[in-house]
């Protein structure tokens, strides 16, 4: 009996393979987007953890110099001679041929076991003699396969090497980086017996172990962003599944009745249907997980580029496979299918054995639902406004976004109904009135698909407005900020002096740029020293500034801080910022500093030299007539044998910066388009569902004289009308979304606030896209309607009683 019942139920799918495909595709798509995003996030988090545990940084404290300069070798030896177990690391970046490689030079002889050096001093696979002697670089396979600077020691592939970095002997690192003093010292947690506290033995600063949390906090916003997109796509995908299951149940009503009538117990029927949904969910989930893996693998290089460009977080562009992740993907597919199918199952359970469909009564009942939804929507939108006004932080930003989007989605059916009712009042002619009333009656059935469309459209408008605003601001900012034509970096102070003389002989203006890593307000930051020059006075964009800002900076009585520091620490003009080491300075201006996660301050050149006497003047900005830039750059490179990277013109830096920028939003763009595609698909399945249920409504109109082709055209027009109305609501929602992204989320996530620009051209494009999507979605049901045999329409009257 169970088998027969199952056969009866399942035969439906044999007769409607398209529906089966829709159901599976919808569920697979939803699972794919969700699990793809999860895979990317998991990979990135694992990379952060790996990076944080490199050389045991997550367990070992370090000794650093307060001013961020390397630790003098003599200080290191003195600590060892005093008995303290500290181990030196020389780290730095090698650049050349457009490639960069982080070098981590370790001392195997003293490194604490907690650092888990990839080369054991005995018993490993690595030739220790060569590691310590001629030198070798341990890199992972991904690093070895990428672009590398020239003239490196032999590479050895080691899985445990961190991304984009090479681990090598400190002697090799010292040679490659031309640096003898350790960058920092690792502190062994097990110090010998009978020694005093380390802090009494040295002036160096003890920095506690770094947690993966540091980089995680920075990148959280990015991952939250991805997760939000993944959830949105999943929700939209579920609309498809909901529609497909609804359709299949609707079409099988007669089968259910028959099965019940021949004695299948209700419980068994429900159980069979639930089993059916679960089987589909597992199959679709498996396909979705595979697709999700493919999506993640495709997007990951872009994500890696974004994270590197924006946060300096290194992750490899290759994706590993994780069974837990795959099972999670399947589970979410089953869960999603259960949610999407629950309503249908409940309806089967409540279905009166012998009742016929009563669409109007159903619509009236739905009207109650719409009112409840309207109230909820109103509440949510008020909540969103309140969070926007008083909320703080990234979570508040996303809560605001969620409240706004869900509120708008819930408000949609009610607002559409209101609009249609208003239109009915103005409508002339019974056919148009019928059309509008009929559209209104269809709303409950279409509302979920329309909500999906609204979400996709709003997200698209919001995100593209945010990206567009950011790009416009960023490009303008780059133009101002990169006022000098050429940027030169010397390798040594002596070389810098020669270059200075060479350029001064040609009568060129040279602006030294000094910088060092230090601490501001207790957190790691960069401090720059700049010359007093009209280049800065005229061009440097300041968000807020005291009237005599440049004079104050020049005479060393004021500092500029970047927007990130300003907003993160809640500073105001006139507040003091503490250089460590160095003086306290009042803030006299704030400048935008897009793309930089850390705090920054700018002080006058003479004060900088006084405060950080050991920092060498190696970088210069050069003012030169634009037509001479190329020649001068070539001349400098040739004369001083400078690497390509050491002489950069404005255009190259701009291009590099813009590349980072584009990289940042490439993933967002891809997800945006996918979401919109899924929404169009949801609309199609909903319309298909409705088409099957709507014959009883259409038959009388047909009987009154409207041709089938007219009715089909009307169906198409109705779909376009609904899409247009939905777009009309998506526009303000999307703009509100953009505002939240720019004014709340960006500030919390990146530390900068951007002016909002609007792009009506993009909206028009999106409207056209939405209309095409709606037309495509409606085309098939309309075509089917146009080809419905008159007999089928006539049967409606025969079945009515």
């Amino acid at each position, binding site marked *: 009996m169970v088998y027969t019942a199952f056969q009866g139920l399942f035969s439906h799918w044999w007769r409607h393979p398209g529906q089966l495909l829709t159901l599976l595709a919808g569920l697979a798509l939803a699972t794919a987007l969700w699990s793809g995003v999860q895979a990317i996030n998991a990979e990135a988090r694992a990379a952060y953890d790996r990076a944080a545990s490199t050389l045991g940084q997550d367990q070992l404290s370090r000794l650093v110099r307060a001013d961020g300069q390397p630790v003098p070798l003599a200080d290191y*030896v003195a600590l*060892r*001679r005093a008995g303290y177990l500290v181990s030196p690391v020389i780290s730095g970046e090698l650049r050349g041929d457009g490639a960069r490689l982080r070098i981590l030079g370790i001392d195997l*002889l*003293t490194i604490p076991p907690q650092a888990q050096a990839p080369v054991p001093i005995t018993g490993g696979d690595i*030739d220790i*003699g060569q590691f310590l002697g001629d030198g070798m670089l341990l890199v992972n396979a991904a690093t070895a396969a990428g672009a590398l600077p020239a003239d490196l020691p032999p590479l050895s592939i080691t899985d445990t090497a961190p991304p984009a970095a090479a681990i090598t002997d400190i002697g090799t690192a*010292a040679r490659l980086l031309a640096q003898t003093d350790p960058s920092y010292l690792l502190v062994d947690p097990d110090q010998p*017996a009978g020694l005093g506290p380390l802090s009494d033995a040295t002036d160096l600063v003890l920095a506690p172990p770094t947690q993966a949390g540091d980089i995680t906090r920075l990148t959280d916003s990015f991952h939250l962003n991805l997760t939000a997109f993944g959830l949105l796509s999943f929700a939209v995908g579920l609309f498809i599944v909901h529609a497909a299951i609804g359709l299949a149940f609707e079409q099988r009503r007669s089968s259910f009745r028959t099965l019940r009538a021949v004695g299948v117990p209700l419980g068994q029927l429900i159980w069979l249907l639930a089993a059916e949904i679960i089987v589909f969910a597992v199959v679709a989930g498996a396909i979705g997980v595979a697709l999700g893996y493919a999506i993640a693998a495709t997007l990951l290089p872009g994500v890696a580029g974004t994270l590197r460009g924006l946060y300096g977080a290194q992750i490899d562009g290759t994706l590993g496979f994780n069974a837990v992740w795959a099972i999670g993907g399947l589970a979410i597919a089953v869960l999603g299918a259960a949610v999407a199918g629950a309503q249908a199952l409940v309806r089967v359970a409540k279905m009166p054995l012998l009742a016929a469909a009563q669409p109007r009564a159903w619509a009236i009942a739905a009207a109650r639902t719409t009112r409840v939804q309207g109230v909820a929507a109103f509440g949510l939108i008020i909540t969103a406004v309140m969070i926007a006004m008083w909320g703080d932080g990234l979570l508040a930003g996303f809560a605001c976004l969620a409240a706004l989007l869900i509120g708008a989605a819930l408000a949609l059916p009610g607002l559409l109904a209101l609009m249609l009712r208003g239109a009915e009042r103005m409508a002339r002619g019974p056919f148009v009135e019928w059309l509008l009333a009929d559209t209104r009656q269809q709303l409950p059935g279409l509302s979920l698909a329309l909500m999906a469309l609204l979400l996709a459209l709003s997200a698209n408008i919001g995100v593209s407005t945010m990206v567009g605003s950011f790009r416009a601001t960023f490009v303008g900012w780059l133009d101002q900020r990169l006022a000098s034509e050429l940027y030169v970096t010397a390798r040594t102070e002596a070389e810098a002096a020669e270059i200075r003389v060479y350029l001064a002989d040609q009568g060129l203006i040279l602006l030294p740029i000094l910088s060092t890593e230090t601490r501001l307000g207790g957190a790691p930051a960069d401090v720059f020293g700049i010359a007093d020059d009209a280049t800065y006075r005229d061009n440097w964009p300041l968000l807020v500034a005291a009237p005599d800002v440049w004079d104050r900076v020049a005479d060393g009585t004021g500092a500029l801080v970047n927007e990130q520091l300003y907003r993160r620490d809640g500073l105001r003009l006139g507040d003091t910022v503490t250089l460590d080491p160095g003086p306290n300075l009042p803030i006299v201006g704030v400048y935008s500093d897009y793309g930089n996660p850390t705090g920054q301050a700018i002080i006058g050149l003479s004060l900088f030299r006084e405060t950080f006497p050991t920092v060498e003047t190696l970088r210069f900005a050069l003012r030169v007539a634009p037509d001479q830039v190329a020649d001068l750059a070539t001349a400098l490179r040739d004369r001083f044998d400078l690497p390509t990277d050491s002489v950069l013109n404005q255009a190259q830096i701009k291009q590099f910066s813009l590349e980072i920028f584009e990289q940042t939003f490439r993933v967002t763009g891809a997800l945006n388009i996918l979401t919109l595609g899924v929404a169009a698909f949801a609309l199609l399945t909903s319309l298909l569902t409705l088409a099957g249920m709507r014959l009883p409504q259409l038959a009388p109109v047909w009987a009154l004289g409207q041709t089938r082709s007219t009715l089909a055209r009307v169906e198409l027009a109705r779909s376009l009308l609904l899409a247009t109305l939905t777009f009309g609501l998506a526009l303000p929602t999307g703009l509100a979304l953009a505002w939240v992204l720019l004014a709340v989320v960006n500030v919390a996530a990146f530390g900068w606030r951007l002016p909002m620009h609007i792009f009506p051209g993009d909206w028009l494009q999106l409207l056209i896209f939405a209309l095409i999507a709606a037309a495509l979605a409606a085309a098939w049901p309309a075509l089917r309607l146009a080809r419905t045999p008159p007999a089928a329409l006539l049967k409606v009257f025969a079945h009515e009683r």
Partner: protein
Amino acid sequence: MNAEMNAKALIICLLLAPAPGMAQGFAGLGADAEGFAVPMPNPDFAFPEDHGPHPAYRIEWWYLTATLSGADGQDYGAQWTLFRSALGPETGRGWSAPQIWMGHAAVTTPDMHYTAERLGRGGIGQAGAAPEPFTAWIDDWAMTSTAPNGADALSALTVTARGSDFSYDFDLQAHAPLIFHGDGGYSVKSAEGQASYYYSQPFYYLSGTLMLPEGPMPVTGTAWLDREWSSQPLSQTQEGWDWFSLQFTDGARLMGFGLRATDDTVYTSATWIAADGTTTAYPDGALSLTPLITEQVAGATLPVEWRVELPARDLDITTTPLNPQSWMPMSFPYWEGPIRFAGTHTGRGYLEMTGYD
């Protein structure tokens, strides 16, 4: 004795030698001497220079063992060793200088064996040795001459070391001259002729303090310093050695070792040292070493009691360790600890066993 020096040297050598060398002999000591100087017969030592390092040779050590008595009446043992191992026959300065140093320190009590190890680079001043004034150091461990002008630099020393759970501080005074092993300090290590330069100061009186987890312990006793350097002290077929330093109650000393080959043959050597420092060297076969009782130590089976016979001196004794678990769990592990012996002669000494793991 040089065997123990060998062990340390071997360790250092391991660090330096290319990987294939590690398959040859304990800690790579059997590797060939490419590019390094090789010990030659009839050495002409010059002091204080030869107390300092010899970078032209691959391996070298300053190896001190001490048999101690505590104020509590208990026996103790202590070890201080500095090994030099060269990646290349040069000195140089900076990170890349090819001289690597390794320190081992230990304190043995009847039920504990405290150990510590340090590794360091010669080119930056973290570790090294200098003949004039004599000092050998790694981190805060040091062996420094306190000898008056004109006296041999090794005739008076201070020695310090520190581990995670112990430290010590010793004053040493020698009461007889340096002695030279083998043929005037040229010590042959195999039938194929591998050799090292090897001399000792076996006549120290010692006083000092052990800092143990229970607290400070004043100690007195005797100590023995070995100096040895070479570039290839072991034959490629030799896998380890057993080395004894014995102090007899009448003031005489004996250094004896057996180098075990893979074919189970043993190459032995011994130096009889009279109380006045006069030495008699005994060639292969004169000394006989027989394991009596083995024990599981750190997963290896080691003979902890030995029968030592030197018929030429009517010597037939049995040695027993103060602590059978005197295991040195270092980069290259070995056994090293104080012993007592009885039989035809009685006294105290030190035993080192390598190549059993």
